[in-house]
C-alpha cells in the first residue's frame, strides 16, 4: 500500500523538473552515456570477478616454474617453449578442427528443429524447449558415460548391428578416437545451438514471409532471402557458444577420446595438474585464447561479408 502511494507521488512530481532531473535528461540524450549506464552493472561485475584471474593468468605466463616455486623474473621462456615444441600448436590446430566439426554438426542439426519449433508449433513452444533441454539436466558426466555404452564394444550400436547381421564382429573404430569426441560433443552442446537459433527465428516478422510469398518467391527462395539472413544473429550466436568453449574442453577427450583423441585443453589441464608447470600452462592458455579470438574474428568478418552481400 505504502509503496503504491509512493509511486503515484513520484508520478505527480515528475513534471516539475529539478536540476538533477535536468542533468539526467541531458545525459539521457547522450547515447554513449546511456549505453554505458545500462552496461555498468554487468561491466562492474565482470571487472571485479574477471580482472584478477586474467591478471594472474597473463603474469604467470611470463614467469618460470622452478620446482615448486616461481621464478618471477620476466621472461618469454614459456612462449619460446610453446613455439619450439611442435606438440602445442599441433594440438591447438587439432582442437580447432574438432571444435569446428562439432560446431558445424550442432548448428546444422539444430537449425531445422529450431525452425520447426519457431514456425510450425503453434502452442506450447515452451514445452518443446523444455523437452529439448531436459536431457541436459542429467549431468554431463553421465551423458558422456552413456555415450560410451552406446558406442562401446558391446554397446547399443554394435550389439544392434550384430543382431541385424550387418557385421559379425564389433566395430572398434567408433569409440576412443576423435570421431567419438565429435559425436559426444555435438550431442552435449545441442541445446546451446538450438536455443539461440530458435530465439532469433522467433523474432522474424511473419509479414515479411508472407510478403515474400506474395511476390511469388518459392519456399526455398524465400527461406534463403528472408528467413536465413534474418536468423543469422542466432546462427552466429550458437556457433560462438559452441565453438569457443569446446575448443578448450578436456573432459570429453579424456573420457571418450582414447589414445589419439586428446586436445589442447588436456595439455593445459596436465600442466596445471600432473606436470605442475603453471607458467607454461598459462602461456599455453594465453596462446589458445589468442588463437581462438583470431578464428572468431575471422568468422565474424566472414559472416558480415556474406550478410552484406546478400543484403
Amino acid at each position, binding site marked *: 500500500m505504502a509503496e503504491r502511494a509512493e509511486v503515484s507521488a513520484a508520478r505527480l512530481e515528475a513534471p516539475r523538473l529539478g536540476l538533477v532531473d535536468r542533468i539526467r535528461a541531458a545525459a539521457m540524450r547522450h547515447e554513449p552515456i546511456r549505453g554505458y549506464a545500462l552496461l555498468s552493472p554487468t561491466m562492474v561485475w565482470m571487472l571485479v570477478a574477471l580482472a584478477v584471474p586474467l591478471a594472474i593468468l597473463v603474469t604467470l605466463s611470463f614467469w618460470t616454474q622452478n620446482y*615448486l616455486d*616461481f621464478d618471477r623474473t620476466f621472461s618469454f621462456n614459456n612462449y619460446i617453449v610453446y613455439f619450439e615444441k611442435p*606438440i602445442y600448436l599441433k594440438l591447438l590446430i587439432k582442437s580447432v578442427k574438432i571444435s569446428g566439426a562439432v560446431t558445424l554438426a550442432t548448428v546444422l542439426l539444430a537449425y531445422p528443429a529450431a525452425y520447426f519449433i519457431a514456425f510450425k508449433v503453434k502452442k506450447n513452444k515452451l514445452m518443446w524447449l523444455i523437452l529439448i533441454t531436459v536431457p541436459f539436466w542429467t549431468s554431463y558426466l553421465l551423458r558422456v558415460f552413456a555415450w560410451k555404452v552406446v558406442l562401446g*564394444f558391446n554397446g547399443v550400436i554394435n550389439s544392434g548391428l550384430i543382431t541385424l547381421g550387418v557385421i559379425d564382429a564389433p566395430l572398434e573404430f567408433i569409440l576412443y578416437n576423435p570421431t567419438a569426441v565429435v559425436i559426444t560433443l555435438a550431442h552435449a552442446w545441442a541445446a546451446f545451438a538450438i536455443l539461440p537459433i530458435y530465439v532469433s527465428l522467433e523474432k522474424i516478422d511473419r509479414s515479411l514471409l508472407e510478403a515474400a510469398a506474395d511476390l511469388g518467391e518459392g519456399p526455398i527462395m524465400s527461406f534463403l532471402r528472408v528467413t536465413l539472413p534474418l536468423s543469422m544473429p542466432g546462427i552466429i550466436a550458437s556457433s560462438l557458444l559452441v565453438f569457443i568453449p569446446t575448443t578448450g574442453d578436456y573432459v570429453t577427450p579424456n*573420457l571418450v577420446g582414447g*589414445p589419439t583423441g586428446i586436445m589442447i585443453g*588436456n*595439455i593445459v589441464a596436465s600442466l596445471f595438474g600432473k606436470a605442475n608447470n603453471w607458467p607454461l600452462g598459462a602461456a599455453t592458455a594465453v596462446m589458445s585464447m589468442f588463437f581462438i579470438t583470431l578464428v572468431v574474428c575471422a568468422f565474424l568478418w566472414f559472416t558480415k561479408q556474406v550478410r552484406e552481400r546478400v543484403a
Partner: protein
Amino acid sequence: MEANELMDKMTSGKMTRREFKKALAAVGLGLFAAPLASRRGLAATEDHPVIFTWEGYEDPGMHGSYLSKHGESPNFTFFGDEEEAFAKMRAGFTPDIVMPCSYKVAIWRDAGIIQPIDDSRLSNFGDTIESLKNVPDMVVDGKRYWVCMDWGQTSIIYREDMVDIEEESWGLMWDERYRGRLSMMDSLIDGVMVAAIYGGAKDPFNMTPEEVDRTKELLREQLPLLRYYSSSPTDIQNALASGEVVAAVGWNDAYSALKAEGIPVKFMEPKEGAMTWTCGISLMAEGDASKLDKAYDIIDALISPEAGAWEITEFGYGHANRKAFDLVDDATLADRGLTRNPEDRLNSGIFQEPIGNEPELQNMFEEVKTGA
C-alpha cells in the same frame, strides 16, 4: 617445548606455500583490495575436521571409533586424483587432513602443504606393519610427515578366457595379438613406470636419460595397441567386464570386484615384478589448530584394526594395521589375493617411490599421447 618445535616446523614448512600464494596474490592486489583478515579457505562453522581424500573412505566403516567418541562423522571432501588435489591446495584450499600416497609426500612437504604428525598420539600406530612404518623419506629430521593407512599392488588384470599367455609378464601390454584390446593407466606412477620396468630400467623411479628414451620408445610402440588410457577404476572394470578390453593395468580392488561379479579374471604376477603402492594420511600445515585433537582421533580411527578389516573386505586392499588381518577370515583374504602374512606380499613387488624429474617425464608422456 614440543609445542614450540611444532610451531617452528609449521612456520618453516609454510614458507614456500606462503610465498607461493603471496606471489600470486601480489599480482591481483593492486586491482583487488580485499581484507587479508583470514587466510582460511573454508567455512569454519562446524567443529569437525575436514578431510580431503579419495571417494570411498568416507564410509563410517573407516572411522567407527571416531563416530562413537564424537557422535558425528567428520567432514569429507573429495578429489579425483592427487594432482588435482595438489593444485587446489596450492591455490589456497586448507582442509585439516589429506590422504596422499607415499610417492607424493616429499613434494607436498616441500610445498609446505603438510606438517609433522606426532605418532605417539596415535594409539594404533604401534600396530603398523614394520616395513610400512619405515617407508623411506616419510620421516625427515626426526619428524614424521605421513602415517601409512593402506597398500595394494599395481599389475595387469586380464581375462583368463580371452588371453592366452605362457608366462606372466608386463610384455602382455605390448602383445600385438591384442591390438586395440589393451588399456594402460593414465598416470606416471602406474603407467609410465610400467614401461620403465618392462624396458629394464635399473631404478625405474630415477631413470638415466637413456632409460627415459627407451621408456618413451616403448610407450610410442604401445600407443596403437591401446584401446585407451584409463583414468579410473570404473573405466578398467567396465571394459574388462564387457570384454572390450582383455587386459588392463590396474589395482587389486579391480581384481576382487570383478571376481565377485563372476568375471573370469586373473591378477598377474609379472616376472619383472608387480608394483606395490602404499597410501596414507598427512596433517595439513594450515589446518585449523583448534581441531587438531579431533584430527588425531580421525587418523587413529582410520588406522585402527576395525577400519582395516572393513577396508580389506570392502575394497580388497591391504591395510597397514597388522591386527586388521586377524579380524578377517581366510576365505575373504584369499579372495582378495592376500595372506595372513602381509609382509611376504609387500616385499615381493617393486616398491613405488617418488619419481625423479617428474615434470620432464610428464611432458614426455603427453608428447607420446599426442603422437609426436
